[in-house]
Protein backbone atom coordinates (compact mmCIF):
# COMPACT_ATOMS: atom_id res chain seq x y z
CA UNK A 1 0.00 0.00 0.00
CA UNK A 2 2.80 2.34 0.98
CA UNK A 3 4.63 1.43 -2.20
CA UNK A 4 1.61 2.15 -4.29
CA UNK A 5 1.24 5.55 -2.70
CA UNK A 6 4.90 6.35 -3.25
CA UNK A 7 4.68 5.20 -6.86
CA UNK A 8 1.60 7.33 -7.41
CA UNK A 9 3.32 10.34 -5.88
CA UNK A 10 6.35 9.81 -8.09
CA UNK A 11 4.35 9.45 -11.29
CA UNK A 12 1.95 12.29 -10.55
CA UNK A 13 2.37 15.26 -12.85
CA UNK A 14 4.32 18.01 -11.14
CA UNK A 15 2.45 21.25 -10.49
CA UNK A 16 3.67 23.84 -12.98
CA UNK A 17 5.36 26.71 -11.22
CA UNK A 18 5.53 30.06 -12.99
CA UNK A 19 9.05 30.93 -13.99
CA UNK A 20 10.53 34.40 -14.02
CA UNK A 21 8.80 36.86 -16.28
CA UNK A 22 10.82 37.43 -19.44
CA UNK A 23 11.19 40.88 -20.99
CA UNK A 24 9.07 39.71 -23.96
CA UNK A 25 6.17 38.72 -21.69
CA UNK A 26 6.47 41.96 -19.79
CA UNK A 27 6.59 44.06 -22.96
CA UNK A 28 3.61 42.19 -24.45
CA UNK A 29 1.70 42.77 -21.22
CA UNK A 30 2.38 46.50 -21.26
CA UNK A 31 1.51 46.82 -24.96
CA UNK A 32 -1.77 44.93 -24.48
CA UNK A 33 -2.53 47.01 -21.40
CA UNK A 34 -1.78 50.26 -23.25
CA UNK A 35 -4.00 49.24 -26.16
CA UNK A 36 -6.93 48.17 -23.98
CA UNK A 37 -6.52 51.26 -21.80
CA UNK A 38 -6.65 53.51 -24.85
CA UNK A 39 -9.72 51.68 -26.19
CA UNK A 40 -11.40 52.18 -22.80
CA UNK A 41 -10.51 55.88 -22.69
CA UNK A 42 -11.71 56.35 -26.30
CA UNK A 43 -15.02 54.62 -25.53
CA UNK A 44 -15.62 56.77 -22.44
CA UNK A 45 -14.61 59.93 -24.31
CA UNK A 46 -16.95 59.18 -27.21
CA UNK A 47 -19.80 58.41 -24.82
CA UNK A 48 -19.09 61.60 -22.86
CA UNK A 49 -19.06 63.74 -26.02
CA UNK A 50 -22.14 61.88 -27.32
CA UNK A 51 -20.39 60.61 -30.43
CA UNK A 52 -21.54 57.24 -29.14
CA UNK A 53 -25.22 57.89 -28.69
CA UNK A 54 -26.68 56.15 -25.64
CA UNK A 55 -29.95 58.08 -25.65
CA UNK A 56 -31.93 54.99 -26.75
CA UNK A 57 -30.01 52.57 -24.50
CA UNK A 58 -33.14 51.26 -22.77
CA UNK A 59 -35.72 52.28 -25.36
CA UNK A 60 -38.00 50.26 -27.56
CA UNK A 61 -38.15 51.03 -31.30
CA UNK A 62 -41.37 52.96 -30.50
CA UNK A 63 -39.36 55.43 -28.36
CA UNK A 64 -40.72 54.37 -24.96
CA UNK A 65 -38.30 53.20 -22.28
CA UNK A 66 -38.38 49.47 -21.64
CA UNK A 67 -38.35 47.97 -18.14
CA UNK A 68 -36.91 44.69 -19.49
CA UNK A 69 -33.98 46.49 -21.10
CA UNK A 70 -33.45 48.48 -17.91
CA UNK A 71 -33.35 45.24 -15.94
CA UNK A 72 -30.83 43.73 -18.34
CA UNK A 73 -28.66 46.84 -17.95
CA UNK A 74 -28.76 46.58 -14.13
CA UNK A 75 -27.91 42.86 -14.16
CA UNK A 76 -25.08 43.43 -16.66
CA UNK A 77 -23.48 46.03 -14.40
CA UNK A 78 -23.97 43.86 -11.31
CA UNK A 79 -22.42 40.75 -12.87
CA UNK A 80 -19.56 42.78 -14.41
CA UNK A 81 -18.80 44.39 -11.04
CA UNK A 82 -19.03 41.03 -9.22
CA UNK A 83 -16.69 39.40 -11.74
CA UNK A 84 -14.28 42.28 -11.36
CA UNK A 85 -14.33 41.92 -7.56
CA UNK A 86 -13.59 38.21 -7.53
CA UNK A 87 -10.99 38.38 -10.30
CA UNK A 88 -9.10 41.35 -8.95
CA UNK A 89 -9.22 40.60 -5.21
CA UNK A 90 -6.91 37.50 -4.99
CA UNK A 91 -3.17 37.58 -5.59
CA UNK A 92 -2.47 36.71 -8.32
CA UNK A 93 -5.79 37.57 -9.99
CA UNK A 94 -7.64 34.59 -11.48
CA UNK A 95 -10.75 34.03 -13.58
CA UNK A 96 -13.46 31.93 -11.84
CA UNK A 97 -13.63 28.30 -12.96
CA UNK A 98 -17.39 28.24 -13.37
CA UNK A 99 -20.43 30.50 -13.56
CA UNK A 100 -23.09 29.40 -11.03
CA UNK A 101 -26.41 28.16 -12.35
CA UNK A 102 -28.25 30.73 -10.24
CA UNK A 103 -26.86 33.57 -12.38
CA UNK A 104 -27.90 31.83 -15.56
CA UNK A 105 -31.39 31.28 -14.12
CA UNK A 106 -31.54 34.96 -13.11
CA UNK A 107 -30.70 36.11 -16.62
CA UNK A 108 -33.01 33.43 -18.03
CA UNK A 109 -35.98 34.74 -16.02
CA UNK A 110 -35.25 38.26 -17.23
CA UNK A 111 -34.88 37.27 -20.89
CA UNK A 112 -37.92 34.94 -20.86
CA UNK A 113 -40.08 37.64 -19.34
CA UNK A 114 -38.93 40.04 -22.07
CA UNK A 115 -39.85 37.50 -24.75
CA UNK A 116 -43.27 36.82 -23.25
CA UNK A 117 -43.98 40.55 -22.94
CA UNK A 118 -43.06 40.99 -26.61
CA UNK A 119 -45.40 38.10 -27.44
CA UNK A 120 -48.22 39.83 -25.59
CA UNK A 121 -47.47 43.13 -27.31
CA UNK A 122 -47.29 41.62 -30.78
CA UNK A 123 -50.50 39.64 -30.29
CA UNK A 124 -52.40 42.81 -31.22
CA UNK A 125 -52.19 44.74 -34.49
CA UNK A 126 -51.41 47.93 -32.55
CA UNK A 127 -48.49 46.26 -30.83
CA UNK A 128 -47.16 44.84 -34.09
CA UNK A 129 -47.30 48.24 -35.70
CA UNK A 130 -45.05 49.73 -33.05
CA UNK A 131 -47.49 49.93 -30.20
CA UNK A 132 -47.47 53.58 -29.36
CA UNK A 133 -50.15 55.75 -30.88
CA UNK A 134 -48.14 58.65 -32.21
CA UNK A 135 -48.46 61.57 -34.59
CA UNK A 136 -45.54 63.38 -36.20
CA UNK A 137 -45.91 66.61 -38.16
CA UNK A 138 -43.92 66.94 -41.36
CA UNK A 139 -43.31 70.59 -42.21
CA UNK A 140 -41.72 71.58 -45.54
CA UNK A 141 -40.65 74.88 -44.01
CA UNK A 142 -41.20 76.71 -40.75
CA UNK A 143 -40.95 80.31 -41.93
CA UNK A 144 -43.32 82.52 -43.90
CA UNK A 145 -44.69 86.03 -43.67
CA UNK A 146 -48.00 87.89 -43.71
CA UNK A 147 -49.36 87.70 -47.22
CA UNK A 148 -46.65 85.20 -48.07
CA UNK A 149 -46.64 81.59 -49.19
CA UNK A 150 -48.87 78.93 -47.73
CA UNK A 151 -47.36 75.89 -45.97
CA UNK A 152 -48.76 72.43 -46.62
CA UNK A 153 -48.34 70.42 -43.43
CA UNK A 154 -48.74 66.69 -43.37
CA UNK A 155 -48.81 64.18 -40.54
CA UNK A 156 -47.36 60.70 -40.18
CA UNK A 157 -49.17 58.41 -37.74
CA UNK A 158 -48.06 55.19 -36.10
CA UNK A 159 -49.83 52.73 -33.82
CA UNK A 160 -53.20 53.91 -35.13
CA UNK A 161 -55.65 52.25 -37.46
CA UNK A 162 -57.09 55.59 -38.58
CA UNK A 163 -54.40 57.96 -39.89
CA UNK A 164 -56.66 61.04 -40.04
CA UNK A 165 -55.70 64.05 -37.93
CA UNK A 166 -57.36 67.36 -37.10
CA UNK A 167 -55.31 70.54 -37.55
CA UNK A 168 -55.59 73.63 -35.38
CA UNK A 169 -53.65 76.83 -34.59
CA UNK A 170 -52.59 78.51 -31.38
CA UNK A 171 -53.52 81.36 -31.24
CA UNK A 172 -56.61 80.42 -33.26
CA UNK A 173 -57.20 83.94 -34.58
CA UNK A 174 -55.09 86.70 -36.06
CA UNK A 175 -52.07 84.63 -37.09
CA UNK A 176 -53.42 82.96 -40.17
CA UNK A 177 -55.67 79.98 -40.73
CA UNK A 178 -55.25 76.27 -41.20
CA UNK A 179 -57.54 73.81 -42.93
CA UNK A 180 -58.61 71.34 -40.21
CA UNK A 181 -58.65 68.44 -42.71
CA UNK A 182 -55.79 69.07 -45.13
CA UNK A 183 -53.30 70.94 -42.89
CA UNK A 184 -52.79 73.78 -45.39
CA UNK A 185 -51.63 76.83 -43.46
CA UNK A 186 -52.41 80.26 -44.91
CA UNK A 187 -50.62 83.19 -43.32
CA UNK A 188 -52.58 86.34 -42.45
CA UNK A 189 -52.96 88.91 -45.24
CA UNK A 190 -50.52 91.78 -45.34
CA UNK A 191 -52.32 94.89 -44.08
CA UNK A 192 -52.57 97.87 -46.43
CA UNK A 193 -51.46 100.18 -43.65
CA UNK A 194 -49.59 99.48 -40.46
CA UNK A 195 -47.27 96.69 -39.47
CA UNK A 196 -47.78 93.10 -40.59
CA UNK A 197 -48.17 90.57 -37.75
CA UNK A 198 -44.96 88.77 -36.82
CA UNK A 199 -44.13 86.12 -34.24
CA UNK A 200 -44.68 82.43 -33.69
CA UNK A 201 -47.82 80.45 -34.30
CA UNK A 202 -48.20 76.88 -33.10
CA UNK A 203 -49.62 74.29 -35.46
CA UNK A 204 -51.18 71.28 -33.75
CA UNK A 205 -52.15 67.93 -35.23
CA UNK A 206 -54.35 65.61 -33.15
CA UNK A 207 -55.33 62.08 -34.07
CA UNK A 208 -59.02 61.60 -34.81
CA UNK A 209 -58.86 58.09 -33.38
CA UNK A 210 -56.88 58.82 -30.23
CA UNK A 211 -56.93 62.40 -28.91
CA UNK A 212 -53.84 61.80 -26.74
CA UNK A 213 -51.71 61.31 -29.86
CA UNK A 214 -50.73 64.82 -30.87
CA UNK A 215 -47.78 66.77 -32.24
CA UNK A 216 -46.99 70.45 -32.58
CA UNK A 217 -44.84 72.53 -34.89
CA UNK A 218 -43.96 76.22 -34.82
CA UNK A 219 -44.35 78.60 -37.76
CA UNK A 220 -42.35 81.82 -37.64
CA UNK A 221 -44.00 84.81 -39.21
CA UNK A 222 -41.25 87.21 -40.20
Amino acid sequence: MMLLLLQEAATAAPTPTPGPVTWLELTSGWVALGFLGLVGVALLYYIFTERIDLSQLISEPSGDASMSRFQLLVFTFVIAASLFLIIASPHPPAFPKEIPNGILVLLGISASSYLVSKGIQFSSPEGASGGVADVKIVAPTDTTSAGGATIAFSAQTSGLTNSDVTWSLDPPMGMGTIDPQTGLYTPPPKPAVGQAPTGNVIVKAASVENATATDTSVVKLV
Partner: protein
Amino acid sequence: MPPLETIVSWIIGLFLLSLLVLVLYRMLTGKINTRYLFYGQRNDGTRYFSPERVQLMIFTVWVGLSYLLDTYETQVVHLPPGTQPVLPDVPTKTLALLGASHIVYLSGKIYSMLLARITKGV
Protein backbone atom coordinates in the same frame (compact mmCIF):
# COMPACT_ATOMS: atom_id res chain seq x y z
CA MET B 1 6.13 50.56 -9.22
CA PRO B 2 3.02 48.35 -8.72
CA PRO B 3 2.92 45.07 -10.67
CA LEU B 4 1.18 44.87 -14.03
CA GLU B 5 -1.87 42.95 -12.72
CA THR B 6 -2.54 45.66 -10.13
CA ILE B 7 -2.51 48.36 -12.81
CA VAL B 8 -4.85 46.25 -14.99
CA SER B 9 -7.23 45.95 -12.03
CA TRP B 10 -7.19 49.70 -11.49
CA ILE B 11 -7.84 50.42 -15.15
CA ILE B 12 -10.74 47.95 -15.43
CA GLY B 13 -12.22 49.14 -12.13
CA LEU B 14 -11.94 52.76 -13.20
CA PHE B 15 -13.51 51.97 -16.59
CA LEU B 16 -16.48 50.17 -15.04
CA LEU B 17 -17.00 52.91 -12.48
CA SER B 18 -16.77 55.68 -15.10
CA LEU B 19 -19.23 53.87 -17.35
CA LEU B 20 -21.66 53.40 -14.48
CA VAL B 21 -21.40 57.07 -13.47
CA LEU B 22 -21.88 58.19 -17.09
CA VAL B 23 -24.95 56.01 -17.61
CA LEU B 24 -26.51 57.03 -14.27
CA TYR B 25 -25.81 60.72 -14.90
CA ARG B 26 -27.33 60.58 -18.37
CA MET B 27 -30.40 58.76 -17.05
CA LEU B 28 -30.91 61.31 -14.29
CA THR B 29 -30.49 64.27 -16.65
CA GLY B 30 -32.81 62.71 -19.23
CA LYS B 31 -30.16 62.25 -21.92
CA ILE B 32 -30.82 58.52 -21.84
CA ASN B 33 -34.48 58.22 -22.66
CA THR B 34 -36.53 56.96 -19.68
CA ARG B 35 -39.86 58.24 -20.99
CA TYR B 36 -42.83 56.07 -19.98
CA LEU B 37 -40.61 53.65 -18.03
CA PHE B 38 -43.39 53.27 -15.46
CA TYR B 39 -46.23 53.36 -17.98
CA GLY B 40 -47.97 50.49 -19.66
CA GLN B 41 -49.89 50.73 -22.87
CA ARG B 42 -53.32 49.43 -23.70
CA ASN B 43 -54.32 48.02 -27.04
CA ASP B 44 -55.94 51.31 -28.04
CA GLY B 45 -52.61 53.09 -27.64
CA THR B 46 -53.46 54.93 -24.42
CA ARG B 47 -50.97 54.76 -21.57
CA TYR B 48 -51.58 54.10 -17.89
CA PHE B 49 -49.42 54.31 -14.79
CA SER B 50 -48.31 50.76 -14.12
CA PRO B 51 -47.61 49.71 -10.48
CA GLU B 52 -46.38 46.30 -11.73
CA ARG B 53 -43.53 48.05 -13.51
CA VAL B 54 -42.63 49.96 -10.35
CA GLN B 55 -42.48 46.76 -8.29
CA LEU B 56 -40.38 45.09 -11.00
CA MET B 57 -37.91 47.94 -10.89
CA ILE B 58 -37.72 47.80 -7.09
CA PHE B 59 -37.09 44.03 -7.20
CA THR B 60 -34.49 44.44 -9.94
CA VAL B 61 -32.50 47.03 -8.01
CA TRP B 62 -32.86 45.06 -4.79
CA VAL B 63 -31.70 41.75 -6.34
CA GLY B 64 -28.80 43.48 -8.09
CA LEU B 65 -27.55 45.36 -5.04
CA SER B 66 -27.97 42.40 -2.67
CA TYR B 67 -26.02 40.14 -5.04
CA LEU B 68 -23.22 42.70 -5.34
CA LEU B 69 -23.04 43.12 -1.54
CA ASP B 70 -23.12 39.34 -1.07
CA THR B 71 -20.19 38.95 -3.49
CA TYR B 72 -18.21 41.63 -1.71
CA GLU B 73 -18.84 40.25 1.77
CA THR B 74 -18.38 36.53 1.09
CA GLN B 75 -15.72 36.61 -1.61
CA VAL B 76 -13.63 39.64 -0.69
CA VAL B 77 -14.04 40.59 2.99
CA HIS B 78 -14.65 37.21 4.66
CA LEU B 79 -12.80 34.94 2.24
CA PRO B 80 -10.50 32.51 4.10
CA PRO B 81 -6.82 32.98 3.18
CA GLY B 82 -5.65 30.76 0.33
CA THR B 83 -9.17 30.22 -1.03
CA GLN B 84 -9.92 31.07 -4.63
CA PRO B 85 -13.01 33.34 -4.81
CA VAL B 86 -15.96 32.23 -6.94
CA LEU B 87 -19.13 33.97 -8.07
CA PRO B 88 -21.71 33.22 -5.34
CA ASP B 89 -24.85 31.40 -6.36
CA VAL B 90 -28.12 33.33 -6.34
CA PRO B 91 -30.34 32.02 -3.48
CA THR B 92 -33.40 30.07 -4.60
CA LYS B 93 -35.67 32.37 -2.57
CA THR B 94 -34.34 35.41 -4.44
CA LEU B 95 -34.93 33.70 -7.77
CA ALA B 96 -38.45 32.74 -6.67
CA LEU B 97 -39.17 36.34 -5.62
CA LEU B 98 -37.85 37.72 -8.89
CA GLY B 99 -39.89 35.13 -10.82
CA ALA B 100 -43.01 36.14 -8.87
CA SER B 101 -42.29 39.79 -9.62
CA HIS B 102 -42.08 39.01 -13.32
CA ILE B 103 -45.33 37.05 -13.17
CA VAL B 104 -47.05 40.08 -11.60
CA TYR B 105 -45.61 42.30 -14.35
CA LEU B 106 -46.71 39.97 -17.16
CA SER B 107 -50.12 39.41 -15.57
CA GLY B 108 -50.69 43.17 -15.54
CA LYS B 109 -49.78 43.33 -19.19
CA ILE B 110 -52.08 40.45 -20.13
CA TYR B 111 -54.88 41.95 -18.04
CA SER B 112 -54.66 45.33 -19.79
CA MET B 113 -54.68 43.59 -23.17
CA LEU B 114 -57.69 41.42 -22.34
CA LEU B 115 -59.53 44.38 -20.82
CA ALA B 116 -59.08 46.38 -24.00
CA ARG B 117 -60.31 43.46 -26.12
CA ILE B 118 -63.36 42.93 -23.92
CA THR B 119 -64.13 46.67 -24.05
CA LYS B 120 -63.81 46.63 -27.83
CA GLY B 121 -65.92 43.46 -28.01
CA VAL B 122 -63.21 41.59 -29.97
